[in-house]
């Protein structure tokens, strides 16, 4: 894992600092001066981190703690706000609307992530293999959707799906057929799948591509001398060597998909009711908070979602780390 590796590589810096002190003659003045310097340097280190620390406490720890606090209370019309312990969580995990949303995002990420990975990995491998001008041009064009806000991306696809002025209907009417409406109850899963793949595959492709470019080309030479084909080089050498980039992408995709909000929220008004107010956990929490002023229950939903994501990512990281170590 990249995370693990970076902490390991930073250790030598620290230990070299420690080892720098022994060779100096053990005079009292020198040692106390270097100790004072170390203390001052530690303080400087904290000062560098301080601005981030303030933002971190104010906009991450405080909201998390406050959400936890709020979620332990319930506001009733007659009773006022009172402490109810874990009742909101018991309610949430037996609330069919919340569970339906969780099930949707879990199902969605299980289909989306492999599709996205396949597209971005294939594109990156091809782009790494070719050095033509078209390949350079393609790399930029495939990446371009990343610069488009999710709101605009969703709107564009909403228009393209539109039966009244989208191109799909025109293509299908050439064959005297009517186009499927990709935002209908049955198709909305695939309609959204396409929007999100379009939006993010290019970004993931660039990350994998950059990792591929960092591989030492002499490895390919050696493999070719041993008689490896281009396919073997791609799947036996390139893919394993960029596995840390793949893990990073998987984690991004997982975190992003479980908190799915913008795209379904934007496509809601043009989807003829197939995107409901409880479509994903985030949309549900948003509507509870701002539609029904149920801030306590909405906090419990937000906090539950955060925990689900956190656990999912940790389970996933644990699983991939295990696998990586047995392979090597």
């Amino acid at each position: 894992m990249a995370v693990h590796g970076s902490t390991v590589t930073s250790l030598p810096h620290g230990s070299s600092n420690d080892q720098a002190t022994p060779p100096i003659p053990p005079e009292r003045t020198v040692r106390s001066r270097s100790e004072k310097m170390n203390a001052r340097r530690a303080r400087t280190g904290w000062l560098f981190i301080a601005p981030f620390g303030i933002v971190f406490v104010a906009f991450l720890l405080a909201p998390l703690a406050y959400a936890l606090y709020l979620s332990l209370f319930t506001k009733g019309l007659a009773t006022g706000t009172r402490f109810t312990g874990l009742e909101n969580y018991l309610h949430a995990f037996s609330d069919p609307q919340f569970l339906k949303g969780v099930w949707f995002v879990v199902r969605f990420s299980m289909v989306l992530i492999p599709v996205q990975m396949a597209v971005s990995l294939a594109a990156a491998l091809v782009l790494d293999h070719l050095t033509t001008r078209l390949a350079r041009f393609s790399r930029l064009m495939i990446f371009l959707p990343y610069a488009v806000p999710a709101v605009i991306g969703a709107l564009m696809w909403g228009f393209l799906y539109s039966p009244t002025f989208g191109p799909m209907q025109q293509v299908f009417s050439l064959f005297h057929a009517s186009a499927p409406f990709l935002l209908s109850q049955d198709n909305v899963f695939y309609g959204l799948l396409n929007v999100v793949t379009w939006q993010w595959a290019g970004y993931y492709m660039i990350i994998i591509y950059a990792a591929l470019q960092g591989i030492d080309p002499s490895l390919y030479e050696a493999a070719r001398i041993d008689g490896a084909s281009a396919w073997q080089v791609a799947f036996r050498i390139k893919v394993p060597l960029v596995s840390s980039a793949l893990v990073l992408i998987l984690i991004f995709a997982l975190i992003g998909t479980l908190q799915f909000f913008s795209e379904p929220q934007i496509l809601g008004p043009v989807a003829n009711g197939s995107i409901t107010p409880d479509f994903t956990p985030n949309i549900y929490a948003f509507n509870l908070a701002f539609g029904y002023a149920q801030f306590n229950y909405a906090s419990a939903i937000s906090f539950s979602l955060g925990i689900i994501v956190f656990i999912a990512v940790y389970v996933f990281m644990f699983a991939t780390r295990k696998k990586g170590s047995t392979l090597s």
Partner: protein
Amino acid sequence: MSAVTTVVPAGTRMHRPRRNLVAHVFLGVLVLYFLAPIWWLFVASTKDAQGLFAGSAGAMWFDKNFNLFANIQDLFTYNGGEYVQWLGNSLLYALSGGLGATAISVLAGYGFAKYKFRGRNLTFALLLGAVMVPMTALVIPTFILMSNLKLTDTVWAVILPSLLSPFGVYLMRVYTAEAVPDELLDAARVDGAGELRTFFQVSLPLLRPALVTVLLLSVVGTWNNYFLPLAMLSTEKLYPLTVGIGLWEQLASSNNGGGHSLWSLIIVGSFISIIPLVVAFLTLQKYWQGGLSLGSLK
């Protein structure tokens, strides 16, 4: 689209023509897929309301009337020029949030990478945990906290939470550890430079690629953000583009008959809104293309 036709000659010049031809066709298909919606957006924003719904040349080609400039004029003057206001707000939020987050990240990343102090590993572990926290789960509690401080529905409600970028700190730490040698810092200290001067004059220039990458990532993140401003803001004058266009979309789809002219405004508005970032990415590609791989460094 003419670039796609150059596939064949470029491919045949290679050693293994057939495989490269297949690879180029694959790329061509991908480019078509990724560009088609943006092409459609451009074409559609040149049409008038009538051409949009009953155009002569289909959805993917220009109508006989080229209406782009009239549409832009409509867009900028509609409802007292609220679009221009939103554009300005988006710029303000993205630049202040992005610059602030980058400055905070580079300082913290440098502190983590180059200073030894008690509690460093613990705080860094905390930070890595924070990368896993879904930011949208924080929006509703942050809203309630800020409303207690009477800060909701102000620009601060959008800018201040955007300053938080644990991933930016992580990138900066990884990059600093690789790019700034300890010997260089020691040499600067021996020469009598203070810690701050060493940071600004010795280290910062070496960190430029990572700096540009973190800046781009956080500007894009703030510019594209929808959930946070949607929750925080209720005054339309404070909306960024994403929330403003979302509002138009709701208005347009709730009254189907009178909404036609609003649909063409939404389309031109969407087209204009993607131009700044597309231009930024195309002109700064030298910097971000290498920088984006930072997070996966071993």
